[in-house]
């Protein structure tokens, strides 16, 4: 059984239909990516799964249980964490306070343990533990946002555009970390505009276009697919 299975999900903002009935699923231990241009509905899909937006119709099942209609904070407690687009760290709090917030649904003892793990993946965060998050560089903020999402000990981690606005060197570093996290047993749903990088690390990918899934396949297949190459990989 799939860990997360989304079926016929439709979401709209007022009169504008952002997602028009998409279905996909993720198995445990996979990295799955949703790629597509601006406005294809990728972030909307993630936000809907996380409970931040209410869908018009469709169902989202996580380990067999329905998520639609459940409050975001309860979804986090069930083991589904979203690392939102544009990082959104708590700029007035220090790095360690940010991470504390990430473990909000967990006990202090659990957090102490997870924190060590997060610092292992992101040694730079440990270095900057007492620094106010607003003064971190873009790459460090992205790491912090990911670390914060990890603090809730998610079974499924959803990453929304982790490479956005980062220097190529940092993008590589972030993707290496994503792969390392996956090896440690975290299932990952990755939304990316950087289709090249995303497809390289993903087991499977879905291509979204104006709210619909137009193509699906393994990462390697999509990487060499003519349409995908033309549309997202620059020929």
């Amino acid at each position, binding site marked *: 059984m799939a860990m997360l299975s989304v079926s016929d999900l439709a979401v709209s903002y007022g009169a504008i239909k952002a997602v028009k009935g998409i279905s996909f699923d993720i198995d445990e231990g996979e990295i799955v990516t949703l790629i597509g241009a601006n406005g294809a509905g990728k972030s909307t899909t993630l936000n809907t799964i996380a409970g931040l937006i209410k869908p018009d119709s469709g169902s989202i099942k996580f380990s067999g249980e329905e998520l639609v209609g459940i409050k975001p*904070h309860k979804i986090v407690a069930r083991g589904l964490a979203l690392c939102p687009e544009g990082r959104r760290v708590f700029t007035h709090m220090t790095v360690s306070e940010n991470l504390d917030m990430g473990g909000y649904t967990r006990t202090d003892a659990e957090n102490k343990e997870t924190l060590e793990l997060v610092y292992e993946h992101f040694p730079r965060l440990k270095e900057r533990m007492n620094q106010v998050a607003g003064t971190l560089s873009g790459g460090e903020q992205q790491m912090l946002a990911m670390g914060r999402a990890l603090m809730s000990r998610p079974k499924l981690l959803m990453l929304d555009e982790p490479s956005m606005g980062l220097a190529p060197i940092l993008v590589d570093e972030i993707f*290496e970390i994503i792969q390392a996290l996956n090896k440690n047993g975290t299932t990952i749903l990755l939304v990316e505009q950087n289709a090249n990088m995303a497809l390289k690390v993903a087991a499977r990918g879905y291509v979204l276009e104006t709210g619909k899934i137009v193509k699906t396949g393994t990462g390697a297949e999509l990487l060499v697919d003519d349409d995908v190459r033309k549309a997202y990989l620059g020929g």
Partner: protein
Amino acid sequence: MTASKATTAQAGTPAASGYRSLSMPMRYLINAILVVVFLVVGELMIDGGVVSRYQTGVIEQIGIYIILAVSLNIATGYLGQLPLGHAGFMSVGGYSCAIFIMRMMDVVGVTARDFVTGSPAAVGLFVIGIIFGGVCAAICGLIIGVPALRLKGDYLAIITLGFAEIIRVVMQNIDGVLGFTLTGGAKGLTGIPSYTNFLNTFIVVAISLFLIHTMMKSRHGRAILSIRDNEIAAESCGVNTTYYKTLAFVASAFFAGVAGGLYAGCIGVMAPAKFGFMKSIEILVMVVLGGMGSMLGSVISATVLTILPEALRAVSDYRMVVYAVVLILVMIFRPEGLLGDYDFSMSRVIERIMNHGKRPEDFAPATTPAVEAVATAVASGAPSATTEKDTGKEASTHE
């Protein structure tokens, strides 16, 4: 006066070695001693006649405005919303506390004189009355907060402003329309015993500040702060944002009600006209001037802005001009408020002295040599490998 602040005791943060810190009971003890010293000195000065009756009245008002400013600061500074109806909660608390005490005096056999001498029954009645006022205001806060907090920014400001006006109009007309003899209508509620004095004002202020401070330093406070910082991120961390927004709003209303209760006993007359829009603005100005999110800032600006109009009575023709000029100058030169979001901690100062002026950060690097080694390896090693990859990629795309 603010209670101790845990600078080093964050979860997961290894305590910096060599840094000498105060234990929590010690911190509480130091602050408790300071509070008692202030209280005793104040009492002695009033009893000894160093401070006049008029000045005592002003001091009581300062205390009341401190609670008002600090409580509004929960909603503005900590939660990051902009409610404009604080005077409404204050009036609800004031009326309900005053009416409760006046009605109960006959029942428990307390006279107005007992409040001055401080008989146990009078003290009990005062405590229950103040809490009753706070609870009534908190209930109003809940009723207003649940629908209002769905809105943000300007919309929230206007809806709370509207509710405060409704409260004011209700206070003014409830007697006439429903035939009660409760609020005294537009004439106001008169004959309120002067149950407020320096001693109980001071104690209520100290308790309120302590409770608000403890709440904000707790896990709940952190959740409220995270909503101000970034609501979506807070939600994705698992914070129940609706609950905490309401909690902050209700707590804010509760303490406004407590302050209102003190106010009624201090002034002796409650008139709906006193709790108009301008009163809410006056309190908001104190919070903004002191610095949103700074408790000490609210305390200082509430003190200064209460004293200023009184001190300028000699030049009463110009006092509003001076008041306005002070506000404009502060906003031009310190737009984040006098203290920004800085908060004073007595324990931190003592810790600095104990450590010969060093801060905890000065000790931190020494504790993590291993981490630094890893970090530098990552910083220097890993990227260089990826740089090669990157240049290779670039070359291939150019083909």
